[in-house]
């Protein structure tokens, strides 16, 4: 595997710690010769850094129509439809702004939701309630809480800062036709709502193919899968993903449509004024 061209998106910077002394290189070569199976070329930290870049930070900005299906254990379906706009401010892992416009359910149409993600501190969130013509700031008390009633947490939607977990590459695996790194991510803080998560990261795209969350009892409770990946504007992009809570049987399926990268979103969009009157030409 070593020496093969690694994925390099426009965003990618050479992560620190990739340079190795020559001796080590030979040593690794030796190891490879001795163990022809596979040598771990990247550390868990490096893999997750690339994952963050590929999954949460591609492009300067990003826009998509997001369809969310919440499926109860009994098979009932609740649909959410929204336009999501994201803009990066700074490098991978840095500040990001999200603007979300709800189309469905139809009685919440025109509701907008805005999130400013800051590295190292809680995000800021605002919600516009059209029926009351009121913008409300919402405290981000719990990053593990559900995003709009789905099985995705706020962390799942906007990405978890790398330094909040320790990342250990534990093995390599194959899912379907994709070769994956399997990284164990263990939250450093004790108040996390799970003990650890295992991520199957595609070696080519660094997108997560599967993630398994293990609760405080080390029992599997959530499973994330990427069901469809496609290249859009040169970025490998997830078109469909699923999060299933295996303990409750509740599932959330998310599909993305009308995906656009680098549309040139202006900073002024992220304001209370535009929350109340979103630019429909951009939102459409």
């Amino acid at each position, binding site marked *: 595997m070593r020496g093969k061209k690694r994925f390099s998106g426009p965003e990618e910077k050479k992560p620190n710690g990739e340079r190795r002394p020559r001796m080590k290189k030979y040593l690794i070569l030796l190891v490879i010769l001795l163990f022809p199976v596979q040598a771990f070329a990247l550390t868990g930290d490096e893999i997750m850094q690339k994952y963050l870049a590929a999954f949460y930070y591609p492009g300067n900005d990003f826009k998509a129509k997001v369809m969310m299906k*919440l499926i*109860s*254990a*009994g098979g*009932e*379906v*609740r649909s959410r439809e929204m336009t999501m706009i994201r803009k990066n401010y700074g490098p991978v892992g840095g500040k990001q702004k999200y603007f979300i416009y709800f189309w469905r*359910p139809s*009685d*919440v149409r025109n*509701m907008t*939701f805005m999130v400013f993600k800051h590295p190292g501190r809680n995000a800021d969130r605002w*919600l516009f*309630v*059209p*029926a*009351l013509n*009121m913008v*409300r*700031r*919402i*405290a981000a*008390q*719990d990053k593990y*809480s*559900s*995003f*709009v*009633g*789905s*099985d995705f947490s706020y962390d799942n939607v906007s990405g978890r800062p790398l330094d909040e977990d320790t990342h250990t590459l534990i093995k390599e695996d194959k899912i379907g036709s994709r070769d994956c790194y399997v990284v164990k991510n263990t939250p450093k803080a004790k*108040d996390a709502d799970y003990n650890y998560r295992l991520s199957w990261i595609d070696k080519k795209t660094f997108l997560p193919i599967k993630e398994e969350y293990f*609760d*405080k*009892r080390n*029992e599997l*409770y959530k499973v994330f899968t990427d069901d469809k990946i496609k290249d859009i504007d040169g970025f490998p992009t997830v078109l469909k993903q699923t999060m299933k*809570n295996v*303990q*409750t049987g*509740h599932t959330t399926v998310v599909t993305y449509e009308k995906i656009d990268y680098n549309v040139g979103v202006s900073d002024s969009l992220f304001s209370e004024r535009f929350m109340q009157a979103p630019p429909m030409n951009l939102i459409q």
Partner: protein
Amino acid sequence: MRRFSLVEFSVDHPGSVVILCVLITMLFIIPFPRMRTDTNPRHMLPATSDVRVWNNKVDNIFALHKDTIALGIANEKGILNPSTLSKIKYITDQILKMKGVAAQDVASFTTIDNVSVKNGILVVGPLMTKVPQHRKGIEALRKMLYENPLFVNRIISKDGKTAAIYIPLEKGANGKQIADKIREIIKREKGDEKYYIVGDPVARDTFGVEMFKLMAVFAPISGMVMVLVRYLMFRDLFLSITLMMDAMMSIIWSMGLLIALGFPVHIMSSMAPIFLMAIATDSMHIFNEFYFRHRETKNKRTAIIETMNSVRRPVRNTALATAAGFTVLIFMHIVPVRVFGGMVAFGTILLRLFSFSFIPAMFMFVKEEKLEKIARHEDIESDRTSGFLKKLAGIGSNHPKKTVFVGLACVLIALVGLTRIRVNNNIVGWFKKGSDIRVADSVMNKALGGTCLGYVVAISPGKNDMKTPEAMHYIEGLQKYLGKLPVVGKTISVVDYLKRVNMVLHNDNPKYYAVPDNKTTIAQELFLFSMSAKPSDLDNVVDYPYRRANIWVQLKTWDARAMKDVINAAQQYRKMHPYPPMELKPAGTAYFDLVWNNQVLWDMVEGFILSLVTVLAILILDFRSIKWAVVGYTPLLFTVLLIYGAIGFIGKDFDMPISVLSCLSLGMAVDFAIHFVGRFKQRLKETGGRESIEDALLWTAARPGKGIVRNAVLFAASFSVMIFAPLTPYITVGAFIVTMMLSSAVFTLVCLPALITLLQGWLLKGNAG
């Protein structure tokens, strides 16, 4: 060709018969290791029963958990202090780590969602993330707790002295095991706090475990009591043990068969051994007669054969009556009851088979001298018991009119008592008053909104109908209406969340603690709430298409009747408010208990009536006379009426254990009449009119009557052990059977002579002459 006689064969080949019995018994032990138990008394209704299917559907629609345990934490000085609060936090954390706990839906201070506004910022998240250490923080927490009706009476009591943690269980988790784990955690905690564990799964699974323990302890004790009482009666250990072996073999055969057929041992079938042991006491009549006969003939073999000839018919017919009484149960609807009926009927028939083979065979092993020694006491002229029984029967035969009159008066009084009978069942009431579970339940019910949970599901015709102000007002009104019932401690619905969100959005202005006036606002406020709260918060109270809403009704009692009150009130409310069109359907554990109680009860009443008819039919067949059957039937009916009348007067609920018992007792209590009438008629025939009817009656009372009394005493002795059980249904069973057996024996010995004397003309027409 001579007819084959099982008795003669057994007497001639006693060794082979005994060895064969033992061998077959060992064969029936083989399936024992495969025994499965089902300790859930609610499984009396099959998984396919309407109520279980509907409850499962409701659980699915509203993402509810079937079972929830509540842990109460009480501190006389109030729970809002750093020490108690950190205990709550620590215990919650430990509970979240337990296997079998539905961790995501545990409701405690640290996990329950709170919606509040702070400096204009909307905060949705757990009520308490960190334990406040200073007054300011504590006061802020107090304010948040008491201003939110979703918390008061649910996770905190009005007086602030009790907090609760609600612990929903995953499917299949055992409530007692989890309760035990929680007990381990709280045992390690020091301080003033007191802890109370309540909830249906704890009661149910504890009951299940206790039940099996009881059967393992009480069945052997019962057996030993019977051996002892028999020994006192006959002064022969060998024969006492023989009788016990007879019972043990029938228990092993029927249990073995049950297990081999793949049935789990259920609450009902676990009682079968004790019933079989009691039914086995009927072989007492063989012993009774045998000693009399032995005294007369001085020959063992002849005595046995003569004994068997004279008791054959009554023994066979009582067995038939008992077996029929239990066989009737096979036609009931409740599966464990059917299994139980089949099992006991099978065991009863076996017992009779043993009476004609195993018991005579065993007699052959007893030394003649020993028999003589015992038999010497068996003389109706010199024996004190026989003398007493003669006097007893004398009351009836000497004062027949007075006796019948007194009897009728008793029946009238009993009928008054009958009208007072209250149908009810209470699963927590199955534990004794001072038991941990009862105490915890009453403490928690006093402090909080109620430990028993039922639901009322409101169903509107169309999608999104629940978002309308009309629907919300309707539910709000219904909650208020139900809240007026004394049994209802608290109700929770989507309206409570909505009003809370509406007020918080309007900067905590109490004026806005109300349902908004248009559908869009309602929809958007609920959506806003769902954006940050746990999904289950809303899922638990409203379905996905907003067509059905679920109203949680916390009841302060486990009485099955309480839910009946709720259902009636909901229907009244619906009649008073025809608009908007809304269907109201009950669900949940409380509702299940109501249906379960009613179904088992009416099934049993049906069985009881069927039993009555069957027993009468058997009497008619046995006596070959409707008249005699009616007379023989009287003491039984009389006993039953008096007992139920007494239950009505005492105020004891007519609950499931009682209803099951009434059905069972018939087949057993009629035995005495069969023996009495059978032997009396036989005596008349034997003496061929040389003896007056009065004398024949007195002889019957003194000789087979002694057998009847011995049987009743033995029966009562074995069941009296259950009066000391820690679970009330067993006490009920014990007390009921003891009373039933003793009184029906006495009534048989008093009523029958009275009736026979009074009706002799009618009864003996063309018979004795």
